[in-house]
């Protein structure tokens, strides 16, 4: 693999500070000292060794594992390899392009011999490339050249080219085709385990091909538009800043991965704080006993260990389409924190309402529980459009008497009521019975009370209405509730 072109020292300084600027714009906290460390680190490594260069920057600038993906993308943009010119003789030799790995703008590189490869030749290459990792990148370059139809200066996003290329490659059926081919070569798989392993490994390779194609398209776009413009259009969000209501499938998966560690960290923090929170009442007996060693002077007062009261939580969640993923994450988070509460009960509704606490009980898997909510909970009453009013009424009838002064009720939803009656008197009742009544809304506060949102109606009875658009806000809210 070729290295980064070695630019003049001043130019390198500019590049690094531009890069740091982009990292900060993407939300990574990079301090002045870290910036200087990066500069110092570069003195000790060969800058034309791309891997070492990247390691040096990563170790000094990125201090959080979740931020690595953002770093990787921006690194590729800023210190772009040249797009792969698809001739074999071009493979080694760093290439003499001037200016810090930023190829001459305007020309669309990569139109080498690969551009002329026939579809059949490409198909054969694809099979080979998947089985031989080294050929992967070369193949990705050829595929992009052939299928993406990229033109210099055309104002189209990378996703468009990616989609075109992937559609042409037909990766979905590729896995099955490859499995058949391998089975034929080996004369069938020895057992199911062997087959499963082979399938997983191929799937991973295909995923790598997809990433490689994506990277190649990015490289060419950088060549066309320059790193600054490209980085701006890429601005990847950190998982904790992704909005629940607009997350892509990939972002959802990242959120899903983030929620376990988040819950663990939160639980540890809360438990620690609870334990160390103010001392309990004076323990008279112990104090007198201690005083004997001071000649009867109670110099060392003893205190009872406090018995912190753990709140009981009732979560009432709207799980209709628009806010379903938000409800799912919140339920998972609250149940993962179950040890911090004396009891957690969950209710879900659309226009009907049902209790789903049992799904989460015991050693149940949170993922499974969420799946069961979707299939088993009885939440549709008439038409499956959110009806907060009816759901609250039923809640009040069936479970209202179980809300006690120890209970904190948390309602999740966007309060978009499809112009049904709001029945906000239920919340007034709940407010009287419960210890606290909170509402968390995944919509930006600016949209509240617009259209069919009736959050204002409900808000007057709540102790607080919080905007929870992303994990960061959700975490802050949960922490605040347990404190109170």
């Amino acid at each position, binding site marked *: 693999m070729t290295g980064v072109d070695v630019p003049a020292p001043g130019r390198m300084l500019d590049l690094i500070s531009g890069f740091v600027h982009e990292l900060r714009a993407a939300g990574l906290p990079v301090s002045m000292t870290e910036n200087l460390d990066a500069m110092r680190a570069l003195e000790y490594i060969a800058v034309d060794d791309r891997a070492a260069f990247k390691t040096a920057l990563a170790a000094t600038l990125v201090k959080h594992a979740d931020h690595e993906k953002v770093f990787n993308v921006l690194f590729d943009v800023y210190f772009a390899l040249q797009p792969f010119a698809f001739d074999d003789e071009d493979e080694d030799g760093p290439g003499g392009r001037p200016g810090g790995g930023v190829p001459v703008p305007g020309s669309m590189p990569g139109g080498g011999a690969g551009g002329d490869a026939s579809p059949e030749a490409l198909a054969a290459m694809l099979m080979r490339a998947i089985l031989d990792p080294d050929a992967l990148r070369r193949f990705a370059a050829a595929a992009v050249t052939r299928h993406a139809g990229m033109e210099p200066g055309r104002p189209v996003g990378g996703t468009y080219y990616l989609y075109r290329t992937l559609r042409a490659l037909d990766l979905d059926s590729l896995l099955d085709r490859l499995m058949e081919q391998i089975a034929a070569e080996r004369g069938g798989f020895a057992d199911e385990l062997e087959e*499963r*392993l082979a399938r*997983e490994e191929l799937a991973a390779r295909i995923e790598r091909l997809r990433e490689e194609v994506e990277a190649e398209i990015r490289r060419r776009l950088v060549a066309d538009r320059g790193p600054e413009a490209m980085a701006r259009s890429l601005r990847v969000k950190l998982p904790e800043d992704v909005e629940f209501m607009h997350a892509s499938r990939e972002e959802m998966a990242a959120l899903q991965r983030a929620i376990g560690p988040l819950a663990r*960290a939160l639980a540890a923090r809360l438990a620690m704080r609870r334990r160390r929170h103010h001392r309990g009442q004076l323990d008279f007996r112990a104090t007198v006993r201690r005083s004997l060693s001071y000649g009867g002077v109670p110099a060392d007062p003893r205190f009872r260990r406090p018995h912190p009261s753990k709140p009981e939580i009732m979560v009432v969640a709207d799980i209709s389409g628009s806010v379903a993923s938000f409800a799912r994450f919140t339920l998972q988070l609250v149940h993962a924190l179950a040890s911090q509460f004396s009891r957690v009960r969950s209710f879900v509704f659309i226009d009907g309402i049902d209790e789903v606490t049992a799904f989460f009980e015991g050693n149940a898997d949170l993922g499974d529980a969420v799946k069961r909510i979707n299939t088993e909970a009885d939440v549709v009453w008439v038409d499956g459009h959110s009806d907060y009013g009816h759901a609250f009424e039923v809640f009040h009838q069936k479970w209202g008497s179980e809300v006690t002064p120890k209970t904190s009720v948390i309602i999740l939803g966007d309060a978009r009521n499809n112009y049904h009656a709001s029945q906000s008197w239920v919340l007034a009742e709940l407010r009287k019975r419960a210890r606290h009544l909170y509402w968390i809304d995944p919509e930006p506060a600016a949209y509240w009370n617009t259209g069919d949102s009736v959050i204002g109606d409900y808000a007057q009875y709540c102790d607080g209405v919080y905007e929870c658009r992303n994990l960061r806000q959700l975490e802050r809210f949960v922490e605040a509730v347990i404190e109170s």
Partner: protein
Amino acid sequence: MAERFVSVDAVQEALRRVDYLADPSTAGVVFLADRLEKPVLVEGPAGVGKTELAKAIAATTGSRLIRLQCYEGLDESKALYEWNYKTQLLRIQADREHERDWETVESDIFSETFLLTRPLLEAIRADEPVVLLIDEVDRVEIETEALLLEVLSDFQVSVPELGTITAVRRPIVVLTSNNTRELSEALKRRCLFLHLDYPDAEREQEIVRVRVPGIDATLADQIARVVRSIRQLDLKKAPSISETIDWARTLVHLGVEKVTPDVVGGTLHVLLKYQRDIERANKELKVAEA
């Protein structure tokens, strides 16, 4: 201070000699830590060789390993230093007859003789090469982290009665974290960061072959592939590298030549430690229940 490593490759090679197979980025960070004289913060799931890395560095540089195991409630007297007040009391009593003035007594009892050094101070004062391992730093409270800052950035410890003690030779410092809580910015800023994750199948296969001498190459390869597959499942606790090695040893002892579903089913408990995980792996891999 004598440079310990000449290049990234040299680091990798040196670590390999003590049976630690580092990937290029690990070796790169260790190299930079040596050159920049900065601590390394190693983060990652349990059992990927974070602590092992510190031990390997110590072994390969011929340094003494000083270890500070962190826990909740760790304080100055356990991490930095403590005055040995019992001996101090004895000394004062022994001095009674001599009628000395207070200044002499004070300078006497607050001298090095009565200082009990704890790991951090010990690492700073050592005059032989030292690797300081601060293990599971995420376990101390955020307030206690502050104790570490002076040591990590300036390699010095301030003892009010004695003044500031500066490192004779700067130790290589490795901090590990399981990421149970977010470490403070101040701490992270002072460290190089290394995220260790489970190795890919090829590297794990190498690790197995290095750590389990006499294992057959194809068996090691199969083991690594099955473990990789198991790690993809949604488990409470994914198998660590040391569990992979344990499994490989088990299979060698059992005289297994080829990993079949039956073999996996019968020995899964070596890899997985939760009943729910074992059941799930059984279900997913469709192997015979033990």
